[in-house]
């Protein structure tokens, strides 16, 4: 399927939950959805066999911004559709996609340990990359992370 057609199909599938739609570069569409709609949106793409979840990126826009962001990138050929979910920094939480994609656990564990975004319902909350003795509440990819937080 042509990339543009792919993107159009995805936009149509996601229409019920799309709060905002952005075209950041050719071949890509970003769709902002509410955390509560994430699972339904992902189901829409996966059930239509639109593509596959290729990565989840966490973003911290900076300490002045009251939010954190999680980006769910779905790929189909050359087309990439990204579901963007914004959550409050004070209590960041998103639902797990484990019911949609059985192999999503690694990505969710990484998001949790690096950004402190709680992924509700994810089956395994062990650290994936960080050591067991890494201090709780210290999220290395947040902008306010400092080496001093690691202690000795």
């Amino acid at each position: 399927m042509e990339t543009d057609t792919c993107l159009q199909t995805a936009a149509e599938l996601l229409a019920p939950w799309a709060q905002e739609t952005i075209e950041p570069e050719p071949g890509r569409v970003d769709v902002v959805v509410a955390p509560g709609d994430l699972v339904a949106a992902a189901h829409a793409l996966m059930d239509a066999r639109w593509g596959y979840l290729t990565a989840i990126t966490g973003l911290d826009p900076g300490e002045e911004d009251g939010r954190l962001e999680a980006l769910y990138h779905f790929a189909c050929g050359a087309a990439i559709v990204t579901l963007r979910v914004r959550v409050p920094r004070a209590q960041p939480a998103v639902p797990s996609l484990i019911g949609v994609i059985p192999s999503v656990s690694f990505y969710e564990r990484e998001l949790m340990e690096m950004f402190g975004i709680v992924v509700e319902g994810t089956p395994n909350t062990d650290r994936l990359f960080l050591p067991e003795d890494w201090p709780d509440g210290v999220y290395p990819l947040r902008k306010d992370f400092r080496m001093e937080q690691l202690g000795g």
Partner: protein
Amino acid sequence: MTLKLDQSWQAALDKLKTWARLNSPWAIHFNSGSCNGCDIEILATLTPRYDVERLGIKLQGSPRHADVLICTGPVTRQARDRLVRIYEQMPEPKFVIAVGSCALSGGAFRGCYNILGGIDQVIPVDVYVPGCPPRPEAIIDGVVKLLAKLRGDNPSDTPVVFDPDSAGEAAILAGEDPVEDLAHAQREEEAIA
């Protein structure tokens, strides 16, 4: 297949081979979180082309029987305890070769949050082999220098650093033609088979 080596390098190797047969050190390898580049080159020293075992150093699996610990990597936080425990399990006298820029100082990762910054942040190091990664010739040269130290040739406690003008480079400059050598070795093998 033999390396075509210049005279001084060959002489050093012959001397060492004699000694090594009388004193064959056993080495153990440990990766403390490297990208595997150095490990690939260490592995290459075992393959027929470089064949480090002809020097008498044998790579095996247990720290309890090892004389030499060959380490790569910048020491990630997870690796630290393991590294210490392996070192502690080795009987005296024991020696450590740090291979690669990461093992020396953290290398390109210096300052990254999950690394300690080099093997000598955790255990004492006897030989440092710089490079990212060092060539197998450089690693072998590090082993040769360590073996010389084991024999008592280098009594000082200061670490021995690979000298780029030394015999290792001579081997490279001796002018092998690896593609032809390999093709030749292959034809020879098939003739025998």
